[in-house]
């Protein structure tokens, strides 16, 4: 008892140093955030005069935000469309695929599984060129569908890998009980797999969503029309403007970050838990 208390006290006294260090690091991490915010209200001249401190509230340039909003909204619509479609499609198909591998050891499943695994080892770098040309042959260039399909296809291997492990851990009795009750495989997925794998599916969904949201390379080379651009490409174009209005640019960046921040505030617990669970499994 007393030993525990002494030890606990001993640990607490050294804590302030840790807090200092961690706080310091967090401050640096938050610094870009702060800069983004306070610059977004200035114009170039104001920023040049006083780069560090926020400007007086009366001199704030709210129109930077209007500019940002007008720029970001069409891109946002495209990005939401692509990311959500790709995530939903990817998860649904991956669950089905993982179910195949996890439920029974069907003939040839060994070979098929190796086929999937090999792809995990394969770096994507060699694929960009042929992928572009494949899309050209399929007349999918300059469409959003191309990006959705690529998003779905790209996520398969990792998602199936993780999901298979998870589904295999579900006790077989649950499946057998459902089967005895006359459930088809589809119903077994709906009633057994999904409820139990909720957290891991959620995590995978978020990861897939993030991956799709941040992608800029394929959209850059696949799309031509400005109205089809997702956020990534839109931001690249913004960066290429010769005369940079930093205030406007920062407002645009902030607005581009906002949707993800909102999403995370809602799903945060899920994500953190999901990551930790995945980590312990190793």
């Amino acid at each position, binding site marked *: 008892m007393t030993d525990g208390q002494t030890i606990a006290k001993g640990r607490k006294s050294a804590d302030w140093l840790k807090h200092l260090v961690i706080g310091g690091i967090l401050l640096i991490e938050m610094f870009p955030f702060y800069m983004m915010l306070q610059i977004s209200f200035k114009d170039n001249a104001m920023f040049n005069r006083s780069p560090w401190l926020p400007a007086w509230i009366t001199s704030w340039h709210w129109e930077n935000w209007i500019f940002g909003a007008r720029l970001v909204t069409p891109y*946002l619509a495209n990005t939401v*469309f692509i990311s959500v479609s790709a995530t939903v499609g990817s998860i649904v198909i991956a669950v089905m695929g993982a179910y195949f591998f996890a439920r029974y050891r069907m003939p040839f499943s060994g070979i098929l599984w190796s086929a999937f695994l090999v792809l995990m080892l394969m770096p994507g770098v060699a694929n960009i060129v042929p992928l572009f040309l494949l899309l*050209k042959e399929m007349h999918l260039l*300059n469409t*959003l569908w191309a990006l959705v399909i690529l998003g779905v296809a790209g996520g398969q291997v990792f998602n199936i890998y993780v999901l298979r492990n998870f589904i295999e851990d579900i006790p077989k009795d649950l499946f057998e009980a459902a089967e005895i009750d006359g459930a088809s495989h589809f119903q077994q997925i709906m009633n057994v797999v999904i409820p139990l794998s909720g957290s891991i599916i959620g995590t995978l969904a978020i990861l897939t969503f993030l991956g799709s949201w941040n992608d800029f390379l394929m959209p850059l080379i696949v799309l031509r029309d400005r109205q089809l651009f997702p956020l990534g490409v839109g931001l690249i174009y913004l960066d*290429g*403007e*010769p*005369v940079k209005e930093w205030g406007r640019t920062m407002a645009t960046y902030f607005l581009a970050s906002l949707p993800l921040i909102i999403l995370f505030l*809602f799903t945060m617990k899920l994500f953190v838990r999901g990551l930790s669970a995945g980590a312990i499994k190793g």
Partner: protein
Amino acid sequence: MNREKIMNLIGLTLLAACFAMALTRVFSRTATHLGSDVVTIRFAHYQLESGVRGAFDAIAREYEKIHPGVVVEQMSIPENVYPTWTVTQLAGGTAPDLIEYGPSTGSDERLARYFQPLTEWVGSPNPYNKGTSLEKTPWRQTFLDGLTGWPNYNTNLLEIYGMPNTVVTIRFFYNRDLYRKITGNETLPRTYQEFIEVCRKVEQDGERITGHKVVPIAGSKSNAPRITESLFCGQVQKLWAQYQGDDLRQANGNEAVLRFAVLKHKLSLYDPAIQSAYQITHDAGQYMQPGFMQLNREDAVFTFTQGNALMIATGSYDTVSLTSQAPFEIGVFPVPSPTRDDPVYGKFVFGPATEAGAPTQGSFLLYMESKHKQQALDFLRFMTSQKMNALFAAKSGWLPAVIGVDVDEKMKPFMPEMDGYINGFRPYWGADTYRVIDNNQYLLLGSDGSVKKFLDALGKDFDAALVSDSQSVNKTSRNNLLRQDIALASYMQLSRQNAVPAAAKKVSELNEIETKLELDLDDGILEMNELGFPPMK
């Protein structure tokens, strides 16, 4: 339901709502595009300068007014992604109908492969010039330079590919207030000597007078060459004339002659004229900020507009940007050159060079696979008519490319100066030599740079690069020939069958082109063989 589940549910509903909105937006857009008889012409460019986009827009609207059922769409691509964008669009077959000539569109390969030669249409008058003095003038002759060279006329392929919108001249922009303060008067330098005097004054007195460091010239990796190249060319005027023989009047001389002279060691980089040219480059560089070769155009513009530099050299296209960004009055004068009686640099020059050859630029190329080729061609005619070019010049603040367009007072100093001598050559003979020179440039410029250090360092690398570049030229020539062969053969066949009336004429045209190409190629191969190098890579 506990709090967490509620939060998740709200989150999901929000997401679903956003998705629904996004969906409607995406699909409503595609709906308006399909199912319409609207012909859409798209043109892409990378001129993001203020005013230019507006000017193009105005022209597009005017065109739509007289052509209902046609929509003209402007696509502005930032310069940093322009090469990637154009290559992917061209390779993917989704390119817009008109593309601006720019980095990565200009190679012979790319031009011949993806773009429609316009030569057959430039001989007839532009119908949109009806009612003006240019009514009966062939389209080609309506431009200030008659489309006789880069970038519009390709000398290897012997075809016209581009239709321009502007002409570019280089000038020195200077800070009038600062100039008055430091030199005490308003007289502008007319010769190189006077120019250096002004620079020296700024260096000596600038800080004392203004209270902060002032650099004479704002340099950068893009602005510095404007000055140094002009000075370089001036020094090699006589040398160039030597090699061109009687062909002095041609704006674009034969650079192959020079290339082979260097390869055969008949002409060396240590030739006094060339050394002097590099020397003057070094001298001019002394008056720019230290480390200027690493800076970008925006950095130089920033230095100038903040009043930390007296002058900046750039093209006429920057007038609007500079005047709008600078809080002081800006004046303009041409890049001065040494006169014949200059003690150090006079002996190599004839005199100031003419700007008659100032190429018309901002050109648009016609995509070969365009779905509305005739319409796009028509739009090109419209855009380059006198009336529309005048509109363009007025709205963008750029110089016009078409003859007879009035230029407003502000832009008058930028109009090309026709009087003058031919210019010399620039020290670049291809991609590899460019790279070698670029890598060693710091030995020439910079405060402890010298011509000797630079030339010594170039040494073997430069020779190897020159060989490589010559091989590339041969390879390109051969490929061009191969391409022309196919066209020639088909036209010959057509003409034999009397299937297409114009075929016979085309055959004789192509024969002429082929002969020239073959001769050039043979020369190239011969020279390389003589030197003991494989003619192509």
